[in-house]
């Protein structure tokens, strides 16, 4: 919200004078007859944004209890009673812990799990402003200021961020923000903001005998062939190509299932979702693991324990979650296979 509001209210008593003052003398000179001064009431009607420093936040307050009423009546039908619904949009509440509130960083954001609103939220203004301008989705801008405070308080209460007796207001909102689980989780990234920025990923324009891994790393599984409908009906029926008739079986023979039993096991236990034999993926390449532990007498036992309990910090910042569902027998096969470099 702008400075003009304050200016405007300062001179409400002398509206006529203010309007004259605000008349765009320079603008009139360059493009006479075009545009006119905005009135204070017009600005107040439209200038509703709330900035991260809470400039623009209107005075008001709401309790968690009132927020629950607003939520149940106006929000729960789409977002679920506890903000957990996945029906119209990813869940709003969930995935944050007391530890996150301490640190101001959400640990689960490093794990391959879905992301809720509260996991990502770093400034409370964004939540307040958005609900105020856009929710309920089918009746935006129908909430009173106090209802917005109340429902924001209730959402934060659902996330165990605010206690049940909290009163959220323009006076307490900064205090509430200091408990956001992900308040320290953002960085303004200049290289992709600035036109002259350099970017963060580089490639070189190799032209001949360029190094490429000898793999077809990913392709669409055959069962997903017609997930987007019949592609024959989505391409022009004249020209150098036709759309593939995906109602019929593929002309590309599907790749054979892996014949290596250890690889099949690794697939079954989802190890290959994060690992490759060669090349770093989410986790380290198994060949690199084999190289690091080569010749160490207790390598198999150490790795088996690590796979089972999960680990972090040995290969980078991304942790490996525990793999608890593995039998000792499968684990032994997998570790042997990893240490052998896949042979």
């Amino acid at each position, binding site marked *: 919200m702008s400075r*003009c509001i304050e200016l405007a209210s300062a001179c409400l008593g002398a509206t006529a004078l203010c309007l004259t003052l605000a008349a765009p003398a320079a603008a009139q000179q360059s493009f006479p007859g075009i545009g006119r001064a905005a009135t204070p009431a017009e600005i107040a009607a439209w200038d*509703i944004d709330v*900035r991260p420093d809470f400039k623009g936040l209107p005075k008001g307050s709401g309790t968690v209890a009132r927020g629950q009423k607003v939520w149940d009546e106006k929000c729960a039908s789409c977002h679920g009673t506890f903000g957990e619904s996945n029906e119209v949009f990813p869940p709003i509440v969930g995935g944050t812990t007391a530890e996150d509130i301490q640190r101001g960083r959400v*640990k689960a954001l490093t794990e391959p799990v879905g992301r809720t609103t509260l996991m990502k939220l770093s400034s409370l203004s964004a939540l307040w402003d958005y609900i105020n*301008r856009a929710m309920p989705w089918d009746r935006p801008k129908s909430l009173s200021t106090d209802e917005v405070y109340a429902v924001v308080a209730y959402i934060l209460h659902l996330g165990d961020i605010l206690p049940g007796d909290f009163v959220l207001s323009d006076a307490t909102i900064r205090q509430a923000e200091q408990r956001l689980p992900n308040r320290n989780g953002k*960085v303004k990234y200049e290289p992709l903001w600035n036109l002259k920025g350099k970017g963060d990923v580089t490639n070189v324009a190799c032209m001949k005998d360029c190094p*490429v891994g*000898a793999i077809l*790393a990913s392709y669409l599984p055959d069962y997903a*062939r017609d997930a987007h409908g019949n592609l024959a009906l989505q391409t022009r029926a004249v020209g150098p190509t036709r759309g593939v008739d995906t109602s019929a079986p593929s002309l590309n023979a599907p790749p054979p299932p892996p014949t290596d039993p250890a690889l099949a096991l690794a697939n079954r236990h989802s190890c290959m979702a994060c690992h490759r034999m060669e090349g770093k993926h989410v986790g380290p390449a198994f060949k690199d693991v084999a190289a690091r532990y080569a010749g160490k007498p207790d390598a198999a036992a150490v790795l088996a324990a690590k796979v089972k309990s999960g680990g972090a910090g040995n290969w980078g910042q991304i942790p490996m979650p525990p793999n608890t569902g593995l039998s000792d027998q499968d684990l032994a096969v997998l570790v042997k296979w990893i240490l052998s470099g896949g042979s």
Partner: protein
Amino acid sequence: MAENPGMPVRPSGRLLRAPEHFLSPAQIAEVTAGRRGFLRGAFAAALAGTGGVAAAQGTGDANILELPAHTKGLGQPVATHGYGQPSQYERNLQRRESPGLTRVSAASVSFAPLQGMFGIITPNGLHFERHHQGWWDIDPSKHRLMINGLVKNPLVFTMDDLMRLPSVSRMHFIECGANTGMEWGNVAVPTVQYTHGMLSCCEFTGVALSTLLDMAGYDKKAGKYILVEGADGSSMTRTVAMERALDDCMVAYAMNGEMLRPENGYPLRMVAPGIQGVSWVKWLRRIEVGDMPYGTKDETLHYVDLMPDGLHRQYTSIQECKSVITSPSGGQTLLDKGFHNITGLAWSGRGKIRRVDVSTDGGRNWRTAKLESPILSKCLTRFNFGWVWDGGPAILQSRAIDDTGYVQPKINQLRAVRGTRSIYHNNAIQSWRVAEGGEVSNVQVY
């Protein structure tokens, strides 16, 4: 995830010719016997619905020898359609939703059918759509634009006002920050429509934003940012750097020679060249000048890039250099071996395209493609590359370089820095695998 079958492509165990679905068993036998010239005619005939009449057999093609009705009769009068329509034979090219991507279609996206488009301009009816709270057809006589914040003169403009001001017309691409977002972890969708179709390019006409900011007397010292805001239910808000706003942003009312389409913001939208599409706020109602970024919902909860360490990058606006082959592309089948024109699009949010290279062997060897004119800043550039398909397996890729020297990266290079869960700003080299049968599919090779 299954292990890879080995580079580049395993010869197909079931080698069938492309148009099998249209041919009778007898015709298939002829094809298998090697009479390849037969194919094209059979294909055309099958599509024309006449069934099994081979071209250029006997004395010649029936389409030539027997004069059709349109050559021997009277056609339709002028103005049959007050607003012209595409041919009835073009119905396959539609913007489409990707099933399962979103849950409600008023907060969803429809993708432009890049596989069937030519040159660099997107026809208005095929421009991709992204709405957060549905679209509206707003009465232009009631639409207003307000400029306030750190300005000497807060102003209100009607559409009449804006259309009286000096106008500028420029061609620019618009790409959603989430374009190709489904492919960060693995191949997820079959065709270029769904991998890259949140991309369009128009000639926009409107008023330079600098003109309006000058009229309002913006604060040249403190005014480092602007907020743009829409008039729809979502009242979308986004922060744009003042430097960009003064450079080449405009407030546009027209696209490709006509007024904006309602789905694209009629009667007024923001045009922010090179910046992700969400900042091109539609149904634009207000611009506020401020001294800090606004941290809006779509700058805090979405359009933020999640890094492997759990930190989100915020304000990652620029759409970096990228390209894609649009034909042949995923979900298509090549008609026959022999000459094919590999064609595609290249663009950069930082400037002009300098060069595009094409590989047909999965990135081992590259040759430079021909760029078609015009080559404009922050605009699509069309490239073409002649290729003789020998009927064997191939993997087609394109790699663009912009005039800053930046080279479009490979997916594994992006992943090494950003992981697989950042959703936005995937500008990786796209690979299309051509199988022996001529079927083209979406793969990742690096």
